[in-house]
C-alpha cells in the first residue's frame, strides 16, 4: 500500500469508533508472538481517545466534576467525534466545547453547563495570554491634571469578560475547593465576572452592574475619563469621585493598559 493510502486508512481507523480495523489495514500489518497486529491497533485506538479525554478533563475540571466521569466522557467523546482536533497543541482541543454543549444538550441543561464551560475556558485563556504593561497607580499619580479628561484605557490581553446568568462561579469555586456542588441556579440578575492574570496569578472578581457598565464603557467602548464622568452625571457632584474610585480599583487589580496618548 502506498504511504499516503496507508496513513489515510490508519487515520480513519483511529478517528472511528470501531476498534476493529478494516481488512486492508489489517493486511498491511505484521504481528509478533508478543504483540498481535490487532493488539497493536487497539493500543493506538485506545490511546487516541484516552489522550484527548484527559486533555478535556484537564481543561474543564468543574464541568467534569459536575457531570461525573461517565457523563463527562460521553459529552467529550461526542465533542471529539464531531470536532476532531485541528491544532497541533492539545491546548486548543477544548476551544469549542461550550458552543458544542449549546447545541448538544437540551436548552435547560445546555445553558448553565455551557456557561460553566465558558468560565473554565476563560481561566485557561487568562493563564497564558500575552504579557502587556499594566497601567499602575504610580503612573496615574504622575499624570498631569490636564491629561485626565482625555485619558483612555483598554483591558489587558489576559482579561476575560464573562457574563454569568447562573451561579457558575459558585460551581467553579466548589469544584476548586473540592466541596459539594451547590445546585445550579439562575441568578436574579446577570453578573459580569472578570478573569485575568496579575503577574503570574489568576484572579477573578464579579462586578456590580454599574461598575461593569463603567468598565465596559471605558475599556471596551472607548470612553475617555471625562466621558465616564458624564455617564455618571446622575450621581451629581459625586460622579468624579465614583469614577476615580473605580479607576483606582481597576488599576490595583491590574486590569488596564494605557491607550493612545
Amino acid at each position, binding site marked *: *500500500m*502506498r*504511504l*499516503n493510502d*496507508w*496513513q*489515510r486508512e*490508519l*487515520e480513519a481507523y*483511529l*478517528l472511528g469508533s470501531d476498534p476493529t480495523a478494516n481488512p486492508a489495514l489489517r*493486511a*498491511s*500489518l*505484521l*504481528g*509478533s*508472538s*508478543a*504483540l498481535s*497486529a490487532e*493488539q*497493536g*491497533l487497539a*493500543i*493506538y485506538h485506545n*490511546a*487516541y481517545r484516552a*489522550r*484527548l479525554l484527559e486533555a478535556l478533563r484537564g481543561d474543564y475540571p468543574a464541568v467534569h466534576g459536575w457531570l461525573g466521569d461517565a457523563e463527562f466522557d460521553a459529552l467529550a467523546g461526542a465533542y471529539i467525534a464531531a470536532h*476532531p*482536533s*485541528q*491544532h*497541533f*497543541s*492539545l*491546548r486548543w482541543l477544548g476551544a469549542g466545547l461550550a458552543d458544542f454543549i449549546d447545541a448538544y444538550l437540551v436548552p435547560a441543561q445546555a445553558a448553565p453547563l455551557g456557561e460553566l464551560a465558558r468560565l473554565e475556558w476563560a481561566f485557561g485563556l487568562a*493563564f*497564558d*495570554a*500575552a*504579557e502587556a504593561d499594566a497601567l499602575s497607580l504610580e503612573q496615574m499619580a504622575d499624570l498631569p491634571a490636564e491629561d485626565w479628561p482625555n485619558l483612555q484605557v483598554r483591558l489587558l*490581553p*489576559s482579561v476575560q469578560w464573562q457574563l454569568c446568568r447562573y451561579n457558575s462561579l459558585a460551581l467553579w469555586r466548589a469544584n476548586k475547593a473540592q466541596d459539594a456542588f451547590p445546585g445550579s441556579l439562575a441568578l436574579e440578575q446577570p453578573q459580569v465576572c472578570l478573569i485575568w*492574570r496579575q503577574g*503570574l496569578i489568576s484572579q477573578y472578581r464579579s462586578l456590580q452592574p454599574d461598575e461593569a457598565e463603567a468598565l465596559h464603557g471605558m475599556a471596551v467602548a472607548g470612553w475617555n475619563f471625562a466621558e465616564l464622568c458624564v455617564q455618571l452625571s446622575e450621581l451629581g457632584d459625586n460622579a468624579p469621585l465614583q469614577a476615580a474610585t473605580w479607576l483606582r480599583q481597576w488599576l490595583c487589580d491590574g486590569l488596564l493598559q494605557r491607550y493612545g496618548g
Partner: protein
Amino acid sequence: MSAESSSLGYGLGLRTPYYQAILEQRPAVDWFEIISENYLVEGGKPLYYLDAIGEHYPLVMHGVSLSIGGPHELDRDYLQRLKRLAQRVQPQWISDHLCWSRGNAHQLHDLLPLPFTEESLQHVAARVRQVQEVLERPLVLENVSSYLRSADDQFSEWQFLAALSELSGCELLLDVNNVYVSARNHGFEPWDFISGLPAQRIRQLHLAGHSDYGSYLIDTHDQPVSDPVWQLYQRTLRHLGPVATLLERDDHYPPLEDLLGELEQARAHAAVALQEYQPCA
C-alpha cells in the same frame, strides 16, 4: 563537531510540577529538555519559568508535533513559531520524533510509526531538509516506541534511521527505552538496533520507564527506568562513549528528589560503563 565532544552531561525533562523546586533548589542537573509545544503560548507562567530556568541551565528543545512523516504539508506557522522560540531559548539543539502525528485531515496527537520503505525514506528526508532550512540547523530525530509493524517494510528501523541521517543530514536522539520496548513488542534484538546506528550521528540519549503488560510493553514514561534498560544504556555508552543523557518522566511525577536520585543512578551507571569505553584511534 562529534556528538562526544558536545555531550552536555545528564539532564532532566522540564515539567510543570518541578518549576518552583528547580528555581529554589538549583539542583545539580547539567541541562533541561523542554517540550517545545508547552511554550508556544503568548505569555504567563510557562514562559516566565522557561526564561528563569534558562538563565541557570542549558536547554534543549524537544517537540512532539512536527509530524515529519505525515501526509500533510509541513505546518509553516508551527515551524516559524518553533524558530521564534529557539531565538528566545537558544537551545543546544532541536529534536522531534521519527513519526507522524497528523493525518490528512486531523491532528492525531500520537507518535505514530511509519512503514520503513524507500517511499517513506524519500518522503521524510525531503521534509527534514525543509525543516532544517527553516530552523537553520540540523534536526535531531528520536526513535519512537511502536506497537505496529508494516508488512511492507524494506528496512529495519535502524537501517531507516541511518539512511535518513545520511540522506538528510539529521542527527539522532536514541531513546534506549523505546528501543527496548519496540524490540520486545516486535521481536528484534535491541543491540542490533543500537549497534546498527551511525554512532557519530547520535546527539543525545533518552532514558525513561515503561509498563509491562505481560507479553508486550507500553512506553508510559511514568515509571523508573527498568533494569534491562539500564543494562542497555551501559552497553550503549561502552559503544558510543559519553553522550548527553536525558531522564524523562511524563506522568506519576515523583518528588524532584526522587528524579534527581534516578539521574544520579544514570551518572553512576555511565561512570562504570565509560571506564570500558575505548575510543577509536
